[in-house]
């Protein structure tokens, strides 16, 4: 197991550099010139050159990359060109918002998905099963920014229960979490349902029935516990997906998270911020995948050999 863990973590290093090169070179092909945004109307070419030199945009690309990477590895993400603040500071400010939102959404979709999956598996084939599974599937097909806007319309504008946008207090978290969570419920519910139906046919469940244990106790105490293994493994793999959803939902609800920062900087052509937020999102996805793989290997030894 230890060998697998080490191999799996070492695999991240080339991936990290590949991703960083891709992000770096992509951003440097961006249209629009950030210097353009800084210059006042009628400023001289000399002023322009001075600014370009100040941000290192006149050096060769390889040099710019090495400089950037060296700084990133030491925790210096550069200075935002348009927002004129250290990028690390901007990212550090935004990250907690995204992590809270993502974490809560992950918990919510998991709990709801497991509950729905359990109910569907327990009354398999009934109208309850079909209705619930159809419902969560339908929810997962809708664009999440539209669900978010609808929720604002219903709960904030019409009913006035929650704030429309922003990030003040826990009330402002309710709608974003619901929006991301509802979309993610379908997969968890489906995996739970299939795993439970699979387990229901096992001999030990038959034995429990024969012993006269209450069916509900069997479902929750024995079958569900057994079926949770595949659910746990897909959870970590969902982190990337949750982050993708968070980007959109943050923009809808005007939450000051990493997604909002990314979209804002993209529209402002603020290279350093775009680079840093993409890199951090990519790292989060990679760490999520890593956790998923490690969990899977911990629970099922067969996966440990898959990396040679």
């Amino acid at each position, binding site marked *: 197991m230890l060998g697998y863990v080490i191999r799996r973590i070492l695999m991240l290093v080339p*991936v990290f550099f590949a991703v960083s090169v891709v992000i770096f070179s*992509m951003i440097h092909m961006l249209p629009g010139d950030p210097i353009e945004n800084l210059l006042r109307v009628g400023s001289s070419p000399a002023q322009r050159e001075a600014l370009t030199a100040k941000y290192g945009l006149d050096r060769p690309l390889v040099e710019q990359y090495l400089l950037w990477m060296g700084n990133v590895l030491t925790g210096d993400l550069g200075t935002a060109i348009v927002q004129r603040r250290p990028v690390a500071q901007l990212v550090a400010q935004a990250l907690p918002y995204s992590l809270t939102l993502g974490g809560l959404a992950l918990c919510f979709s998991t709990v709801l998905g497991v509950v729905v999956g359990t109910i569907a598996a327990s009354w398999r084939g009934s109208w309850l099963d079909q209705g619930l599974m159809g419902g969560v599937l339908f929810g997962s097909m*809708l664009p999440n*920014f539209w669900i978010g806007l609808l929720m604002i319309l219903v709960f904030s504008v019409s009913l006035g229960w929650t704030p429309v946008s922003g990030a003040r207090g826990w009330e402002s978290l309710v709608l974003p979490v619901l929006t991301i969570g509802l979309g993610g419920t379908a997969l968890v519910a489906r995996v739970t349902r299939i795993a439970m139906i699979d387990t229901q046919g096992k001999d030990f469940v038959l034995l429990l029935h024969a012993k006269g244990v209450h069916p509900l106790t069997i479902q929750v105490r024995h079958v569900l516990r057994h079926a949770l293994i595949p659910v746990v493994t897909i959870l970590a793999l969902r982190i990337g997906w949750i982050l993708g959803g968070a980007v959109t939902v943050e923009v*809808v609800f005007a939450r000051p998270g990493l997604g909002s920062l990314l*979209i804002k900087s993209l529209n402002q052509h603020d290279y350093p911020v*775009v680079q840093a937020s993409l890199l951090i999102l990519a790292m989060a996805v*990679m760490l999520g995948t890593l956790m998923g793989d490690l969990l899977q290997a911990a629970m099922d030894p067969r996966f440990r050999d898959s990396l040679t």
Partner: protein
Amino acid sequence: MSGTVHKTGILATIRRSVAWRALATIKGGVAGGFLLLVVLGAIFAPVLTPYDYDIQALTNAFQPPSLAHPMGTDEFGRDVLTRILYGARTSLSVSVVAISISLVFGMTLGAAAGYFGGRFDRMVMVVVDLTWSFPEILVALMLVAIIGPGVTGTLVAICVAYLAQFTRLTRSQVMALKTETYVEAARGLGASHAFILFRHLLPNCLGPVLVAGMLATGDAIILEATLGFFGLGAQPPTPSWGGMMSSGSGLLFKGPWIILFPGLCIALTVVAINLFGDVLLAKLDIRDRLRVV
């Protein structure tokens, strides 16, 4: 003449086709019918509506839905229904074209990787796995960042975002098929690699890959709308479903119908595509082959 003889002719061929059999079910009929309606609406938009999609009439702004404007008017007094019909042209064509290009590239790459194997296969899979592990929206955002906001950027973004999926699927299909006896027989008869690939392997994995492509088109419509919503999609005044919601999101209090109807349109179209794809999967009996990925 006995009735068992297969009828020939165009009508009979259509009736035997999978698409027709899928349309004949209730689920497939409703979903397919709705999709047909949307496509026809997009094509015949100029005939169907008396309004223009980009002529502003500020005195007419923020009209709630009425007989003259069934879906109301937006902040510039433009008819929302008209813009949805014209927006369907952008949103649908961008998604369909992007997925088609992605399918062609993905199938070529995946078939070559699966058939030849070895170092080429490993090289392709490293790149594919790298993009596969990232959410499509992140991949798309990176690409839109380079190419710039607009239709071209969105097109390329969707293309690349789904390339990994099609490559993986085709590769796994080809790998499963290439050891079949008939492939060996063809090789024994002296058939070239290209002949085996194009004549035997690709036609056999076409079904699952095409259905996967159709289902991905649904996701692509959402992706296109999301980019549009961020203001990175088709630029105004060109209407697109996502773009309409982008400008409408700030006007939630004054005119909720401005975002309600485009969103409903996206949602219904995507759900219809998924339902129809589901019926196709059942009719073609390839649900298990799609799970190989």
